[in-house]
C-alpha cells in the first residue's frame, strides 16, 4: 500500500500546485497550499512504514507549522482586505514593478 499512497500524494500535490497557480482568490490559494502540505504529510506517513516512527514525528511538526502559517496568512489577508476591499490577488499591485 506504500507505492499507491505515494502516487495519491503526488497527484494531490500536483492538484494543489495547479490551484496555487491558476486561482485568483487569495483564500483559495491558501487552501491549495494546505493541500500541498497534506500531500507531503501523506508521503511521510506512507514512508514511515519503511523508515520508522520518525516520519510520523515530522508529520506532527508539519501540522504545527501549517497551523501557524494559516493563522498568520489569514491575518495578512484580513488586513489587506481592509485596505483594498477585495481578496483578488490581481489587485494587490503595490510591490509590482
Amino acid at each position, binding site marked *: *500500500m*506504500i*507505492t*499507491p*499512497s*505515494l502516487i*495519491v500524494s*503526488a*497527484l*494531490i*500535490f*500536483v*492538484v*494543489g500546485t*495547479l*490551484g496555487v*497557480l*491558476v*486561482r*485568483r*482568490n487569495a*483564500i*483559495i490559494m*491558501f*487552501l491549495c497550499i*494546505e*493541500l500541498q502540505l*497534506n500531500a507531503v*504529510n*501523506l508521503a511521510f*506517513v*506512507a514512508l*514511515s*512504514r*519503511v523508515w*520508522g*516512527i*520518525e516520519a*510520523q*514525528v515530522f*508529520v*506532527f*511538526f508539519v*501540522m*504545527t*507549522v501549517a*497551523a*501557524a*502559517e*494559516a*493563522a*498568520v496568512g*489569514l*491575518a495578512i*489577508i*484580513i*488586513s489587506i*482586505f481592509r485596505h483594498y476591499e477585495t*481578496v*483578488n490577488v490581481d489587485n494587490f499591485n503595490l510591490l509590482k514593478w
Partner: protein
Amino acid sequence: MADILFYTFAAVAIGSALGVVMSRNPVGSLLFMVVTLASLAGIFVLLEAHFLAAVQVIVYAGAIMVLFLFVIMLLNLGHEYQRDIKGGVFAVLSFALVGTLAGFLARQLGAGAAAEVMSSAGGRSIDAAVSEFGAVGAIARPLFTTYVVPFEITGILLLVAIVGALVLAKRRVL
C-alpha cells in the same frame, strides 16, 4: 477489504482536491477541502498511523478549516460565483509547469517502484512500539526524547504566530 477502502478513500481525496481548485464558491472549496482531509485521515488509519489520523481530523478538519471558514464569513465572500481562474499566457505556462512536475514525480515513482526498495522494517518497528507503548506513546517517545528541542521551538513558533496574527489583524495595536 483494506484495498477497497484504500482506493475509495484515494478516489474521494483526489476528486475533492480537484473540487477545491474548480469550485466557484469559496465555501464550496472549503467543504471539498474538509472531505479531502477526512479521506486522508482514513488513508492514515489504513497505514497504521492512528494518532495522526485523529490529529488530522481534530486539528486540520476541525480547527484550521473552521479558521478559514470564519475568515470567509467575516469578509463576506460566501456569495462570489464568478470564475476567477487566470487565463491567457499565464494559464498555459502554469499548466506546462504542472505537467512538468507531474512527469517528474511519475518518473521518480516509477524508478522507486521498479527498484522495490520498500521493505517493511520500519513498519515492524512501529508495530512493536505501538503494542508496547500504545498508539500515542509510540509517537510521544521520540517526540519527547530525540526531538525535544524542535518540539520546544514549535511551541515558541506558535506563540510568535499568535502574537503576529493579533498584531496584523487588529485595527490599532499601539
